[in-house]
Structure formats: C-alpha cells, structure tokens
C-alpha cells in the first residue's frame, strides 16, 4: 500500500509513461472513446472499462493512406492506431460527431472495423430541453446496443453507481485543480498534466482513491522552488504531449489552470438526479458542461478560462492549436481579443499530436516567459 505522497506521484508518472502496462492489468473488457462528450458512465455501468484514447507518440504508418493530409493530425493518429491494430485490445469504440475530422475517422473505421463493437452517438450541439430529451433517447439506445452486443444487462442501479463513481472522481479532480489554482498545491506542469490526464485512462475508483490520498498527504517538495515560476494557463482542445509540458517546466512556466478537452473541461459539472430519469440526468450534464469550440458556445468557455486565470493569478495563456483544427484556428482571434481585453497575454502555438521541434517550442516559450515575466 503506497501511502506516501511522492510515491503516489511516482506511480502516476509511471502509469502515464506506459499506460499500456497499466491497461494490461485491467480485468474488464475495455471500450474506447476519443472525446469528452461520450459518457463514461454508460460504459462503466456495463461493467466495462471506459478508456479515453490518447494520441500516441509514434509516427503514422497507415492512417495517412486512408484519410486526406489536411485532416487534423490528432484524428490521423487515432485512425492510424485503429487501422494498424494498436487498439485491438479494445472490445469496441464509441464516437460522436465531435468535429469534421473525427466524423471522417468514425466513418472510415465503421467500414474497416470488421465485427468489433462500434457506436456513433448523434450528438446535439446545444443545451435545450428538446436536445436533452433527444440525447437522453440516444444514450438509452447506446446502452441497449452495448447490452445486446455484449449480452449483458445495464441496470438502473449500475448506472446510478457509475454516476456516483464518476461524480466522486470529478470532485476529486476539481479539488486538485482548486488547490493548484490557489497555490496550496505546487506542482510542475508535467506532473499536473500527468495526474489529470490519467483520470480518463485509469480505473475510476482506483484513480480517485490515489488522487484523494495524494491531496491529503501532499507536502511541497522542498528542492523545487515552484513559487518563483510564472503561472500560466494552457488552453486548447487536444494537447497530450508530455514533451510540451516538460518544456514548460524547463523554461519556468507553471500550468496552474487549463482549458483543455480532457483537462478541466472534462470534469466541471456533476450529474445531478433528475426526476425524468438517469439518461436525462447524464444528457443534461454533458450538454451543459463547459463546451469545446466545436459546440459553438465560445463565450462560456472564455468566461470560465478568464475566471480561472483571475482566481489563480496566471500571467498568461498558452493556446495550443492542433493544425487543421478549423474550430480552434477560426476562433482564436475571438479568444485572443477577449483575453487581451482582460489584460491577459496570450501566445498561440500550432502543432500536431506530438512535438516535432522541441527547440522551436523552447524558444517560443522562453520568449513568452520573458514577456510575461516582466509583468510580475
């Protein structure tokens, strides 16, 4: 039993480094998903492990022969992992219409998956009573499809329990964010990223327990003077490169706030009980959560980011844009204007699913650190 804070952190780091080793020990069938709108609760209620697929750090082998080169590199990486058999340990995958690139991946995989489980959730973009009803019906269809395909039963009790577990995890992650934001928990950008990103990879109960113990037993590491580092926020959709966060650490930029799809946006908002039923409750939460730019409601996202920056005292925002992501590339000017109005400096860094040039990244982050450091 690990009961030491730094030992827990080491374990998080190890799992983040080699998640495949961790996943080998999961004794349940694993269902994959790619974005934060697929409700993990329904997969968990089927006694399966919901696994968020991350872009891996490997070169593309087959993906780019099946999709145009102007698809976003993250989606090409996902397609590559699917087609190359790297994800053959999954029992199936669930998509929704997240963006134009991922709908392409979903369709291509639908035609190439053989007999493996595949489900596409027709997903609304807005949160109204009608869209919640619609999504609720669609989530029920998802549950029925899983039940039929795997010959299992998804009971109301199982969904209730899955919601309780996911909510508990969200609360733990949000507490972690809050402590980091308030400066009561000092942690490097790379460790921050490692811990948060594992919330959608590890078993939820195990993860929550570890994170809660980590928080309880936390004491600042004496040989790391985080207090003098420059606090920044990282915004974007998909940023999964450990190299990126390690480079931030190198130049003294400490992430205290994030606005990433599988960062804070994945955890804000709990599922509350609804008289209309469990699926309604799940639908309501997912449609009301802080949206990605692909959902159109940019103001809510920016408001959240600005509030988090204020509360944390961040000195600037690093906006990571995945090349060929139309939504982020188009909306960046809006985000930039809003942040500058609030006197929050912002830098846009464009790249792929992995960092191709750490030297260039280092130079840009150093320049940004110098620029905002002077404002301290």
């Amino acid at each position, binding site marked *: 039993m690990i009961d030491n804070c730094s030992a827990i952190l080491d374990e998080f780091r190890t799992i983040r480094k080699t998640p495949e080793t961790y996943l080998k020990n999961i004794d349940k069938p694993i269902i994959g998903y790619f974005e934060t709108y697929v409700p993990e609760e329904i997969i968990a209620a089927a006694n399966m492990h919901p696994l968020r697929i991350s872009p891996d750090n490997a070169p593309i082998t087959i993906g780019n*022969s*099946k*999709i*145009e080169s*102007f*698809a976003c590199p993250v989606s090409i990486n996902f397609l590559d992992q699917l087609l190359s058999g790297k994800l053959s340990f999954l029992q199936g995958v669930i998509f929704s*219409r*997240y*963006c*134009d*690139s991922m*709908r*392409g*991946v*979903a*369709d*291509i995989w*639908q*035609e*190439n998956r053989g007999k493996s489980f595949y489900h*596409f959730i*027709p*997903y*609304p*973009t*807005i949160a*109204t009573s*009608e*869209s919640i*009803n*619609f999504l609720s*019906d*669609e989530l029920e269809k998802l549950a029925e499809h899983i039940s039929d395909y795997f010959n299992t039963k998804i009971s109301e009790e199982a969904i209730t329990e899955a919601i309780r577990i996911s909510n508990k995890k969200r609360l733990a992650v949000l507490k972690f964010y809050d402590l980091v934001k308030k400066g009561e928990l000092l942690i490097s950008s790379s460790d921050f990223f490692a811990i948060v990103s594992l919330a959608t990879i590890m078993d939820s109960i195990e993860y929550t327990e570890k994170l809660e113990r980590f928080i309880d037993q936390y004491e600042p590491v004496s040989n790391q003077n985080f207090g003098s580092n420059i606090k920044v926020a990282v915004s974007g959709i998909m940023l999964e490169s450990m190299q990126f966060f390690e480079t931030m650490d190198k130049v003294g930029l400490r992430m205290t706030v994030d606005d990433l799809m599988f960062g804070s946006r994945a955890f804000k908002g709990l599922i509350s009980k609804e008289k209309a039923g469990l699926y309604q409750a799940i639908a309501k939460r997912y449609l009301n959560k802080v949206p990605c*730019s*692909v*959902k*159109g409601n*940019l103001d809510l996202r920016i408001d959240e980011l600005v509030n988090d920056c204020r509360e944390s005292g961040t000195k600037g925002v690093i906006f990571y*844009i995945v*090349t*060929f992501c*139309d*939504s982020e*590339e*188009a*909306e*960046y*000017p*809006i985000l*930039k*204007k809003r942040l500058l109005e609030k006197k929050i400096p912002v830098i846009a860094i*464009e790249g792929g699913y992995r960092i191709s040039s750490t030297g260039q990244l280092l130079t840009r982050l150093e320049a940004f650190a110098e620029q905002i450091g002077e404002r301290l």
Partner: protein
Amino acid sequence: MRLEATGNLKKLISGYYSDLKKYADSGKPIAWVNVGIPCEIFYAMDIFPFYVENYGAMLGARKEAVKYSKFAETDGVSKHTCSYLRSTYGSLLSKEGPIGKLPEPTILVETSNSCVTVLSWWRLIEKATNVPCFLFDSPMVEYESSGNHLAYQVSETKRMIRFLEEKTGKRFDLNRLKEVVKISNEGKRLWRETMELRTNHPSPLTGADLFTHMFPMVALRGTEQYLEHLRMLYKETKERIKRKEFPVAKEKHRFLWDNLPIWHDLRLFEELAKKGINFVTDTYTQAWGDKFMGEVSLDDPIKGLAYYTGGGFLNVHIKKRLAVLLDIIKLYDVDGVVFHADRSCKSYSLIQVQLADQLRQNGIPSIIIEADHNDTRDYNRDSIIARIETLSEMGER
C-alpha cells in the same frame, strides 16, 4: 456552348443582391444564413435570406477570395481554415466586396447540418456584427431523419420560427409557407428532371453547367423567379437533345465529380470537355433536387422541411454517401469518378479515400485530386488535368 438561360441567371443573381440592398435600405429584416437552412420559411415570412456560402462562391468564381481572405488572416484566422469562411469574413471586415459593403444583418441563423466549421464561422460574424444569432441544431443521422431525430428537427424548426418572429416582428403564416413550398417542390422536381436529361448519350450539359445554375436552388427556392428560371433551363436542355446539340459531341468518358467544384476554375470542365471528358453528374448538385428525399408534403410542410434539414447530404454517414454514388453512377452510366479532396470542406472530403477504395472494389475507376474551392494559392491545374487524364486512360467508350 453557352446556355441561353445563363443570361437569365445573371439577372437572377443581380436581382438577389439588389433585393438584399432594398431590404437593407427599407429597414426590412435580413438574415445571414448558411446553406442548410430552409429558405422557404424565410421567404414565407418576408425575411431576406442572405446565403453567406453563395456569396463566398461568388468571391471564388470572381477569383477574389484570396484578396478578402487576407483580411481574415490578418485578423488572426489561420490560412488552414475553410476558404468560404476566410473570404466572406474578410469581406465583412474590409467593408468591401463585389457589391460594395455588405448590408448588415438583422439576425444570423446557422445550422450544424453541413459541418462544424460553420459554428466557428458564425461566431466570427456574430462578434463582428453583434446581432442575435440562432443555431438550428441538427445531429448527424445514418441514412435519413426519422423517429426521435425527425421529431427533434421539427422542434428545432418551430424554435427557429419563434426566434424569427421574436427578432423580426414578422408573423409566420402556415398557408403562406404552403404556397412557397409548393413552388419549391416544383422547382426541385424540375432541377432533378434537368439533371436526369444528362443521362442522355451524349449529355446535353457539361459539368460546369449545373454548378453554375445551382444558385437559385440554394438561395431562391420557393420564389417565382426561381421557378421561371428552372423551367427555362429544363426547356433549353431538352431542346438541345431534340436538336442534337451537345457540348461534348463525342463523349469518350462520362465522369462523376464528387464535392464542391473549384469555383475559381470552372473552365477546367471546358478544358476536359475538349478531350472528350464530360462530367455528366455530381453529388453536390444532386443534393438540391428531390431524387433522394422526395417532395415536401404540403399537408405538413414544417415536418417536410425538417426532414430535409436533418437528412442533408453532409449530415449522413458513409453508407448513405456510398449508396448515392452507386445509384447515380448507374443512372448516368458513369465510367469514372473524380473525388475533389477539397481542403476547405473537411466534412465532404475526409471519407473520400474510403469511398474511392470501395468504388474501385465495385469495378469503378476512381481518383482523388486535391484543391480548394475558393483559394487559388497552391492550385496546380496541370497536375489535376494530368490525373484526370490518367483516369481516362483506364478505358475509352
């Protein structure tokens, strides 16, 4: 070989933009909308539907898209984003364009049934114009809108009508909508029948013809001038067959074009026609006829229009796209397919490699060419012609 109807088309286009200015000058409501929005409702409510994509296509055809895109790019919008978005947003920012400064909208209306990029596009326009915006939500469907999806599309249509009434003060009248839909239905039928005249060997039209004439199908459905134009186009096309006047008299190849055309180079079709290659059908103009979705019922036009919005060609999955391709390949006796991988239309383009593979497995030669429907930068015409010629070498009629 120029269609006489093209002269009328020019009048229609100039009339449309002249009406836009008249609405602006008289303070009547103008809605900036995207192509998935049913214009019949707007015409029935006397709200002018300004189709931003159409305006983008005009910038493209006039080779002015890059000029205006640069304004958007200077504002921070990446060159990688959709060139419709960049060129129209750039024109808005520059306060310039082929018709001068664009008249300001009263409201904005968008739908998610074609792509996700529209949502970002309308955010930019919304921030620049500061007027109320309505999003018609349309989740993707496998084949067609039905069941709870259709019920949701009906509720979205009604929600949109309430928004229009509230923001413009115009009243919705179901009987007026039925009148407009009746005209719209008639026009869609004529459009399909004109398209189907291309099943003739040789085809009476080239690939460029219907791309050129699709403007009223997008922006004027339900109006008298739309119907008049479609009658004219149908009649003239039919007469060509009767008189045996064909733009490509000796069709060596009957090809299909998938995706938007390259608006800045519609002459590409003429160039290929000289080599005996005629594009006798395409998936884009098919989307505006009634072949795959039928006519909108006059008993319940709201439901009928909702069905169209929900099951739009870019809102369905690959199996439907493939079914449409196979259907029209057979109907038009197509012997090769050119997939235009359009850098500015990911939702149309990103499954084309898969579709091409599946067509080849069905014995249908297919190639992919890469271009951008509006942006002329990085355009390589010679390479595209060479690739299409390679397809033609796979066998002559």
